[in-house]
């Protein structure tokens, strides 16, 4: 058993070369008939001759539900589209949905349920770093496959996780470079919510500002999650007059933060603010008029002008309603099922080990954000874009970088 497993990759690699050479279309032609279940599933996953089960694990109740709903919708849309195209290796995807309930221990419990009881072939889910940290040991021990959509702090890499959002350096460095040049910025004020992602992000930002850009950080402050009183922070910003305020305030706090800025007369023509935590979803709550003129650094905006994205936005609205908005994470969640499908087809197997190994260097040319490729460290190569918000709640892309290599353990930034 062990030996045959080990010898497999050799011919598999040959097949991969062939598939890449003749285009990925060939692989998706392969029907269930050519792929007996015993061969594509040697580890007892929930795969039959015509179906394969996957899990979706997000919060649909509790405080995080508002953020995670978009991800659930995107994942479902992708799976429905894949099914309409004939499924994966000729098998229709069946979804088992579980509710993480915005509670990290519940995430761990449900992840174990999906992997142990339901033997799902892959799980698309989690949103906050805390929920990912809670389920990671479960995925590693039970050997499952997780597609995680949120931009996050990095400092993590696992065989069992594909990170479809950006890690911190991808999101921060190019954006800072751009704004420093564009606004001739020398002084920066870093603000964030008090947890691991903003702290790590600002650590990277500070190093980059001080060591590379030759600028100065004139303030760094953190506020508890859910904080709604930013009066003293706004006074300090007025006093210090930084060239750029760099914000990683998340969730509900955002509404208070941007509205209070506006009420205090700090508008985009007086103060440059760049945030790495506001997507279209948040702007819906904040109100476009309060965000007008400020910048977000993200890899995706709903307004991206390319064919892939137009088709995606159209399909999303047709499925989930004309009023839906699509943020960065929603798009990243949409990539999950597609990347999994490509990896399964490349591996010719649903087995987690095979899929994890086949994932490196998988490309997706149909991604709404453009071209993406999985790095051997299981993060995605992606571009960074800076969007300037308009009163209508949509962003105009004012800068687009080249493809950036993901580097979850950045040397010199720790």
């Amino acid at each position, binding site marked *: 058993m062990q030996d045959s497993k080990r010898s497999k990759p050799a011919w598999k690699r040959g097949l991969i070369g062939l598939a890449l050479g003749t285009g990925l279309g060939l692989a998706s032609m392969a029907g269930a008939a050519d792929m007996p279940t015993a061969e594509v599933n040697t580890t007892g996953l929930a795969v039959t001759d015509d179906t394969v089960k996957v899990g979706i694990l997000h919060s*649909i*109740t509790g405080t995080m539900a508002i953020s995670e709903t978009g991800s659930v919708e995107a994942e479902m849309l992708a799976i429905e589209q894949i099914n309409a195209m004939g499924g994966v290796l000729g098998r229709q995807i069946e979804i088992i*949905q*579980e*509710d993480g*309930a915005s*509670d*990290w*221990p*519940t995430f*761990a*419990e*449900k992840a*174990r*349920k999906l992997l*142990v*009881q339901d033997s799902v072939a892959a799980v698309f889910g989690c949103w906050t*770093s*805390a929920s990912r*940290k*809670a389920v*990671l*040991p479960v995925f590693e*021990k039970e050997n499952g496959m997780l597609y995680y959509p949120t931009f996050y*702090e990095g*400092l993590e890499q696992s065989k069992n996780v594909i990170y479809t959002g950006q890690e911190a350096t991808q999101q921060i460095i190019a954006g800072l470079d751009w704004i420093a040049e564009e606004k001739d910025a020398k002084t920066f004020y870093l603000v964030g919510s*008090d*947890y*691991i992602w903003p*702290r*790590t992000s600002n*650590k990277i930002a500070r190093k980059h500002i001080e060591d590379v850009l030759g600028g100065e950080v004139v303030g760094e402050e953190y506020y*508890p*999650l859910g904080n709604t009183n930013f009066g003293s922070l706004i006074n300090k910003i007025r006093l210090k007059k930084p060239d750029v305020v760099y914000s990683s305030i998340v969730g509900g706090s955002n509404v208070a933060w941007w509205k209070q800025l506006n009420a205090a007369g700090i508008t985009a023509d007086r103060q440059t603010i760049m945030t790495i935590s506001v997507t279209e979803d948040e702007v819906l709550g904040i109100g476009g008029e309060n965000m007008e003129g400020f910048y977000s650094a993200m890899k995706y905006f709903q307004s991206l002008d390319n064919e892939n994205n137009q088709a995606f936005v159209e399909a999303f609205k047709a499925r989930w309603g004309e009023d839906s908005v699509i943020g960065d994470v929603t798009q990243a969640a949409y990539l999950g099922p597609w990347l999994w499908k490509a990896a399964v087809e490349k591996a010719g197997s649903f087995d987690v080990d095979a899929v994890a190994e086949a994932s490196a260097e998988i490309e997706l040319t149909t991604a709404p954000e453009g071209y993406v490729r999985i790095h051997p460290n299981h993060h995605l190569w992606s571009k960074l874009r800076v969007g300037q918000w308009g009163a209508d709640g949509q962003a105009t892309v004012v800068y687009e970088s080249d493809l950036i290599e993901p580097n979850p*353990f950045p040397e010199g930034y*720790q």
Partner: protein
Amino acid sequence: MDKWIAAFGGRQRLLQLLALAVLLMVILPLTLDIFRLNLVGKYLTYAFVAVGLVLCWGYGGILSLGQGVFFGIGGYCMAMFLKLEASSPENTAIQSTPGIPDFMDWNQITELPLGWIPFHSLTLTILLIMTVPALFAFLIGAAMFKRRVGGVYFAIITQAIASIATILIIGQQGYTGGINGITDLRTLLGWDIRPDSAKYLLYFLCCILLIACLLVGQFVLNSRYGKLLIAMRDQEDRVRFSGYDVANIKIFVFALAGVFSALGGAMFALQVGFMSPSFVGTVASIEMVIFCAVGGRLSLIGAVYGALLVNLAKTLLSESFPQLWIVFMGALFIGVVLLFPQGLAGIYEDYVRPQVAKLFSRKSNAESQGDKAVAQEAR
């Protein structure tokens, strides 16, 4: 022998306890797979809290809405010990400072904080799991009860304490792991706590500890102290005028409930493999009161069934109705409290027990008559 049976609440109570022990340690392990059994083990850790609440709320009349704090103390103590063991310099070689927990490294902490050092030793950890909550409860109790703060005011203050504890834990993330909690716990003295065999062992350990707590609880309630406790709940002034120090009575029961909760927390960290501030906060603390209310606040054993039932319903409902389960849970709580104010224990006392009693009394009558006949013959 009879003296001992009486000291633990009489034959009836001990039989109920035996039935619970058989259910937990024989029937469930034989019928459930390890995944579900591990979940039951997790629910049982909440039962420790509920049992403590029966003593302190049901019998002592002290409603604490902050029991999550004690659960958290136990859980964090255990998690800190396990985390230190998982953060050996070899396992953490990738960090800028190897040998400290990963989240400290992310927060630019370069040496192990002083408060973590005792948790290198398991003996000290276990000692701390028992003494820290007792001491903490003593401090709160001494501050509140000596000044005759009670009832609703005490409930509100405990809730505030739970709230403060959460904010502290989340705010001091370099030392506590913040909102992520302490994750990825692996071994206990080199023994891997993650495989199925370990899960079984920990489950049984949890059951044994819980039953020990129940026995202690029964013993306390049947002692002279237990009588005082009930007297104090019903007529506090009369007990005070009889010359007893009411505050001390309250402090003791509050501390005992705290220690029980902490044991539950420690077993939680062991069985689930991580600890998070979400168990410390007000929501979790109030949920624990609900387990106790559903079980029946005057029944120690009922509290265990309450914790099991509520959590089982929570798991099953959320698996079947991921969108609506929270509504069903709410309806369940309201229904139980409205229809059965004495909880599950009340249902048992009103409907099941008379039947059981009838069955037993017939039997024991027959037996005793038989005994008489034997005795007469012997004469």
